[in-house]
């Protein structure tokens, strides 16, 4: 028995006790789905006109700025809603991340204490 | 700008520097016989150099000794150490850090191990390694002190 025993071992399925995972089968399925989608796409309407309204970016009816910087949604504005909802959590997290070496060591001492207590009891 | 301390300090440094140097080299060479060794002796020599640095000022010393040369010396020391360790592959029982001079008939001079408590050739390659380490420590520690002194000098000297 070698490292690669037979060719079949290369594409064998990964078994995890209640499930399995074989990327090659998955990719095969994906290729088939892609082909079907491509065929369906072939039935689409080809009669659009270039360089007209039809090919322009649709921004919910808003006009497009010439300044490209203004058009790009910046990273800090992404997930605004998520940040807003979890404001309370982030307030705590930000307060903990003081970025101060003494506090890092303080956490180290705290965790040491917790481990001592738990292992001391057991 | 006249750098350094007073004339008295400079003269006394000139008197004591060679003595400290010799003592440091003694500690390096006798590392396998008496307390001490490459690091300790190297630290003594480096502190002698640091004394010169303080007495004469960092600018003067920087002119005499280039940090570049120190780093080459340091590399040579480290290569010497690993080289001696690596020679163990070639001689005797063949392993890394093999003390190949010890009792293995490679060089007959080094065969008499343990006889004569004050001879240098009684511990195989250990004196060689001590010399290599000593070289590295002298160069490394002095380079650290020198660069730090120079950096603080530049800080005071109006860069900020």
């Amino acid at each position: 028995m070698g490292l690669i025993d037979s060719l079949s071992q290369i594409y064998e399925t990964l078994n995890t006790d209640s499930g399995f995972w074989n990327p090659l089968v998955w990719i095969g399925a994906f290729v088939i789905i892609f082909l079907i989608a491509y065929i369906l796409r072939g039935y689409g309407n080809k009669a659009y006109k270039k360089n007209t309204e039809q090919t322009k970016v649709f921004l919910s009816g808003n006009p497009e700025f010439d300044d490209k910087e203004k058009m790009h949604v910046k990273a800090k504005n992404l997930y605004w809603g998520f940040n807003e909802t979890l404001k309370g959590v982030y307030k705590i997290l930000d307060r903990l991340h003081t970025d101060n070496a003494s506090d890092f060591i303080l956490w180290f001492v705290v965790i040491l204490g917790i481990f001592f207590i738990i292992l001391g009891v057991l | 700008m006249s750098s350094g301390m007073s004339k008295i300090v400079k003269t006394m440094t000139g008197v004591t520097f060679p003595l400290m140097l010799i003592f440091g080299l003694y500690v390096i060479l006798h590392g396998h016989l008496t307390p001490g060794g490459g690091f300790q002796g190297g630290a003594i020599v480096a502190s002698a150099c640091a004394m010169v640095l303080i007495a004469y000022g960092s600018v003067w010393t920087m002119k005499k000794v280039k940090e570049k040369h120190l780093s080459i010396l340091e590399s040579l020391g480290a290569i010497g150490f690993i080289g001696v360790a690596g020679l163990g592959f070639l001689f005797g029982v063949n392993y890394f850090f093999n003390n190949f001079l010890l009792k293995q008939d490679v060089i007959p001079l080094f065969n008499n191990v343990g006889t004569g408590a004050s001879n240098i050739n009684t511990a195989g390659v250990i004196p060689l390694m001590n010399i290599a380490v000593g070289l590295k420590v002298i160069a490394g520690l002095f380079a650290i002190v020198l660069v730090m002194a120079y950096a603080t000098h530049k800080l005071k000297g109006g860069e900020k």
Partner: protein
Amino acid sequence: MFEDLLTHAPALIVAIPLLGAFLTPLVGKINDKLRNIFAIIIVALNSFIILLLSYNILAHESVKLAPDLVKNGVQTYIFGAQSANYPVARIIFEVDGLNAYMIILGAILPLAAIIYSWSFMKDETGQDKYYTLMLLLTAGMLGMMMTGDLFNFFVFLEITSIASAALIAYRTNNKFSVQAAFKYIVISTIGALFFLFAIAILYGQYNALNMAVLANSIQYGLLEKIAFVLFVVALAMKAGIAPMHMWLPGAYGRAPASVTLIVMGTTLGSFYGLLRIGFTVYGEHLISGTNLSIALGWMLVGLAILTIFVGVLMALRQNDFKKMIGFAAVAEIGYMLLAFGAALASVYQDTAGAVAFSPEGVTALRGGMFHILNDALDIGLLFLVAGAIYYVSKESSLNKLGGLARNLKYTTIFFVIGMVAVSGLPPLNGFASKLMIYQSTYAINPILAIVAILASILLLAVFVKVFYAAFLGPKLPKFDKVKEVPISMLIGMLILACIIIFIGLFPNLVVENVVQPAVDALQAVLDNTNNYIAAVLGGA
């Protein structure tokens, strides 16, 4: 033919980068290009020897290159006194399945980093020292992953801390990198000192420093408990487990990208130390199916959940690309800890008194172990991409980036590969290991799996944010002149991407042949004769 080379391989793997490190400044005096080629040759040679050694240990008996060297899956290399009469006058390097698995990281990461550095570091001063420190860091990392001696482990730990702190502060004109380096050296020194304190306690009790010798004779009294806590917490801080992770994003984020790659290797080396101490040195008492192992397992699971959540939530909030990946790396470490903690909690004692991992526990071990490799590759690739973006734009804040996909074709492809892999989307490697973790933790407690999957989704959201903010969007006028990064950086990324795709496509091949021996080495603690211990005490 490889017999001689393999006999000395464990020593050579540390010696070659060390020698290279000290030769580099001398070669650098001659010519800059020559020095770069020299560094690449040294690392490539080292990687070759590492892979040979790993192959020789991991491969099945009949295809080993030098079967005589490996006894029961363990190869030992003795420095100093060859006879066992002087147990303290020698240091032993022991390479078993777990070590052989870990040093594969030491083969891949430095190679990619050094090749990447050629162009990435082209305009910086002091490159001689950069290459010296990189090779020193590589040597330290590999030594950490192979040594069988606790004090030697401490020495290598310190070598890596010093070298990596110096490298994190490499761009000294940036005040943030100097600060990050200072914080890193403070926490790693204190961690290492407490580690040394624990070593001293064990030495005072047992008069031994070798892990196998200690494991053979260790009791579980008060002093050993204290030493254990010090070991675990010190290494956990070095491995970046919440709430002691806070140094990690700063250190990862402020270092040059190629440095981060190897610093990450040392972080995983600390994680390896955690496994070695838990499963080998204290294995007999810890992995026992008693209340102790279950409580400890659940405690680790709790820390893991905290680590995952803090990492992911903070990553979502960051606007600095590299810091964001740093927090994502924290979350990934949480996944490993989750797997190992769950495995520990699943240890049980059957009615006959025999101790065993439950089947889910074994899957968790496999998943966690597999995830170590995957995490290093995925996060490493993302860091290299972040470095490439910094290289072309001199900008690490995502707020100022945009539309780079139009100019950086290949880099974008590499980013997408990294993003898909790290957030556990099929078909790349992250999915395979995370699937194993999900399934095993689901069997142990469904809530754990739900948390893990949720965090994985958030991780995808993190990188989609980067993808949108940095790569998509209209072409910004200030990036008009941006060109694709130089070829050496592309090669560095390509190496990692190819391995990611390979592992992604053939997960079973890797799990069965590479991960399984490492898991077996961990499970050996339950056998009557632990090979790791027997290799030192039995022979010689």
